[in-house]
């Protein structure tokens, strides 16, 4: 199946990509996407992904379909074909 990952903020600066499409196996989880991103873009590790390669570094988060932020306890949830994940860094201010 295919999922799309959009990069906003720091992850876009690091990857120099706005969006990528990933062909993944059925049952792939959000954590699995983190692992794939860390492998494809090792420079994300330490900047956006924690050194363990499996966890996003706060305040970076996944948002599913622009409607739902993925919580730490949901990182092992499975994805569906066509899902659109946004990797963003949220915090207010200014």
């Amino acid at each position, binding site marked *: 199946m295919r999922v799309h990952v*959009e990069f*906003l*903020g*720091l992850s*876009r*600066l690091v990857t120099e990509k706005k969006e990528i499409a990933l062909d993944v196996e059925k049952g792939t989880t959000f954590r699995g996407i983190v692992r794939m991103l860390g492998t494809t873009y090792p420079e994300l590790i*330490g*900047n956006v992904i924690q050194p363990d390669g499996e966890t996003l*570094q*706060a*305040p970076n*988060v996944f*948002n599913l*379909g*622009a*409607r*739902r*932020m*993925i*919580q730490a306890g949901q990182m092992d949830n499975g994805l569906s074909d066509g899902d659109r994940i*946004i990797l*963003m*860094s*949220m*915090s*207010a*201010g*200014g």
Partner: protein
Amino acid sequence: MYGYSGKILHIDLSKRRTRTESKPEEWYKIYIGGCSMAARLCWESIEVGCDPLSPGNPICVANGLFAGTPVPVGGKYGLASKSPLTDFLGDSLSGSWFSIALKRAGWDGIVIHGASEDWVHVFVDDDRVEFRDASHLLGLGTYQTEEAIREELGDDQVRSATIGPAGENLVRMANVTNDGRQAGRTGHGAVWGSKKLKALSVRGTNGVSVADPETLLKLSYDIVDAAQGPHTQKYRILGTVSNVLNMNRIGLLPTRNYQQGVFEHAELISGEYMHEHHRVKTIACAQCPIACEQMSRVIEGPYAGSMTGIEYESLYAVSSNCGIGDMNAAIKMIDICDRGGQDTMSTGVTISWAMETFEKGVFTKEDFKCAKYPEGFEPYFGDGEAGVTLAEMIRDREGIGNLLAQGTKRASAQVDAERGTETWKWAMNIKGLETPGYDARALKTFALGLAAGTRGGCHNRSAAYDPDIKGEVDRFSVDETRGELAKSTEEYAAVYDTLPLCKFIRRCFTGKADRAGAWPVIAQLINATTGWDFDYDAVDLIGERAHTIKKALNIREGWTRADDHLPYRWQHEPLKEGASAGHVVTEEELEYLKNIYYKAKGWTDEGLIPREKLIALGMDDVAEEIGV
């Protein structure tokens, strides 16, 4: 007493006299500093029911507990007066060298009473106060005024808080500026202008005593170390402007006066675009190891050379919210505001109201005559030059700028009274303060936080966007948890605004930004500075007390439950596209949210504060006046 001098300086501009007031240590333990202490000084000094632009409205400066110490991001002070935008308490924070100079001069706070007959610059030189003629400074911008004072006094260590032409012209959204930072939002600059106070300068040459320097240094170094790491990376590299694309993607980027939540040109006004095309360097406030301010410059075109620090809240207001997808015009508008000394957010939202009012046919080209365009101009959404011109006209109160200088609440009321229209329906303010860069129609906890906020439409005093945006609750719906959440998040923010510490440091204590992660370390910082014995609960109480004194002042100024409102648009006009389409905060939802919020606060159904509650917080004299 460690960490404090125990002295408040009172300056009477009418009589040109000063006096020193000593405060007991117990008073400091309740009000601490920053916004809370400034609000308390205002409570003690204001002429109840006064016009905000009259001599009875005091200027209250309250320094930060950690100003001048090694504690990172603690170089901040609070400023309070009755707001000429809201007619309730206006409390603001600003950072950097001014607060450090004030601490070294030996003053915990300054209260300025009365009004001067002639333009004046007050120079506090340690314990000596000088009233200096300021007539030659009139018309100078904020940065220029600071430089002129340093040159005049022959000392580059003199630090000044100043107003620009906007404050001189009593523009109700005028700011006070020091060291390139603004005490913004609620119109302090107009209050200063009404007193003919062009600048307050300070030279401090004393040391700062703390109770346990060794522990304070150790704690501070650890925080500085953490502040160089991933917890602040977003702020250091892109700054807050990275929120443009975030908010656009989730359908909440205010666009064309909040008519839309998605802006088709968002990429062109994004932090990522600014980083690549306009960023010159990143700078920091004094005492700050983060350095978040993205100094950005216009390289070419009619606004070439304009340069200032750009933050998200400024940027959304003057760009997407005015339909402007031109970063050059956006930087120019923010530069005009910063130099002129006027609030970028209120300026942008007021301009967007004017653009919509024009597009709906209430205003015509004739209404926009000015020296630059004698035949008038047509301010359609998206017209960057119109935005630039209107920002200048507001600053100078030129033509229609005289109307817009009052902010959206007063301007719409005047137009509607004169022309029989209903422009108030798209006047985006809460209690008269223009709304921030998060469309609250689909952030329902935040909607409550904004409606109930003592300051009006402010994202800094209510942190209730956090649970909504982070997905800790369903942002599209309302449930019984939101009252407690709004209370909890506003009091959390109030702790930072009272010490004050910049909130960008919040993950650097232990890696976790919540109370459990931050309060124990903050207690240690307080104790090492003062010698007190604060613990988690005592730190938590700082926020409740701070919020309570502000609310109490509002009640005394005539606040009622009906004042906790939302803009009409957020309650009756759903967004039509994007990820947040279809939502409003209904009348029923808002009233329910207010009910559960007042209950969570321990207030009455009408939002008033019981006497016993105030007494339990150590505010017996406040209980006497407004307790029920």
